[in-house]
């Protein structure tokens, strides 16, 4: 497992799945804002679940986020689009409602960067978010990301086209 200052990132456990599917996937607004896909109803155990347990993969590393102080499940985080040729990857995360606004996002992004750069030997990590997602933008900046631009009206989000802000961070030795 990977340890930050406030959270631990560990493998997904079976007990996490129904909680994450209910509180994260079940949040239609939050999922529509972050997934880039239309929200669908999802039955327990569905293959399509982003939160189900999967075998380790070269393309994606799925984590459960646990609050260090209480050992409680706080959310999900992923390093995806791992490209071993371009030596790059993308960060995604979503916290359970009760764990938002506590600075966990910044800690998670830092831990995922450490994993990407140190363990995987990547050269670059990217993340993007809607232009009005101030928590995610703040987490990216605090974790050392540079805003590289804005894809205008690139994300259909619950009735309107929203701008997508793109961030990148290069390995320290780059």
């Amino acid at each position: 497992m990977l340890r930050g200052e406030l959270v631990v990132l560990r493998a997904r456990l079976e007990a996490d799945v129904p909680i994450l599917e209910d509180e994260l996937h079940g949040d239609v607004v939050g999922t529509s804002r972050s997934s880039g896909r239309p929200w669908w109803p999802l039955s327990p155990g569905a293959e399509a679940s982003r939160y189900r347990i999967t075998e380790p993969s070269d393309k994606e590393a799925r984590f459960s986020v646990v609050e260090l102080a209480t050992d409680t499940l706080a959310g999900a985080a992923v390093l995806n689009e791992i490209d071993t040729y371009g030596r790059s990857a993308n960060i995604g995360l979503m916290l359970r409602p009760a764990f938002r606004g506590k600075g966990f996002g910044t800690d998670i992004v830092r831990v995922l960067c450490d994993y990407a750069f140190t363990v995987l030997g990547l050269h670059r990590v990217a993340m993007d978010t809607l232009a009005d997602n101030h928590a995610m933008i703040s987490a990216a900046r605090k974790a050392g990301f540079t805003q590289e631009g804005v894809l205008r009206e690139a994300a259909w989000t619950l009735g309107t086209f929203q701008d997508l802000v793109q961030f990148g961070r290069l390995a320290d030795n780059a």
Partner: protein
Amino acid sequence: MTGGLHGNLVRLRARHEADVPILDTELHGDVAGNARGSRRPWRPMSPGAQASMNRVAEPTDRAAPFSVVTLGDDELAGEAALWGINTLGRSAHIGMALRPAYRGKGLGTDVVRVLCHYGFTVLGLHRIQIDTLTDNHAMIRAAERAGFQREVIHRQTVWVMGEFLDELILGLLAREWTP
């Protein structure tokens, strides 16, 4: 033959079997060019390989691959595509590669315009983007002539023959597009 989408200099039509060996040889066979345009390592590829980016394939909702032919003499000039078609975000990407003998003739600008017509008018897209290396001046010029705006520079994101290069994203919205 006249079927397909017409520009001022080129016609975009479906891939034909006769195109495949030419595109595989001249486009895939160019290792350095391939490294610049692809996000995968170049590999040797035998004739008829399933992995060919240029092979004839059934239509899909995700990508529309075209062969580019010249209007005057109906010669194969290269390949072009709308790829990454996203029906939720109503967006897509433009990709293009011209045969060496057909570069520097303004065909790229015409291809971009024809693909915009296809994307905005036929498919009803809201947004089209072009992802290119920051030193690909021909592609950037073609994009900007069609009205695309520079939106993002992804720093050191593409591995090209020994170094990481920057990638420029240009975007055009349906309401900004003038046919």
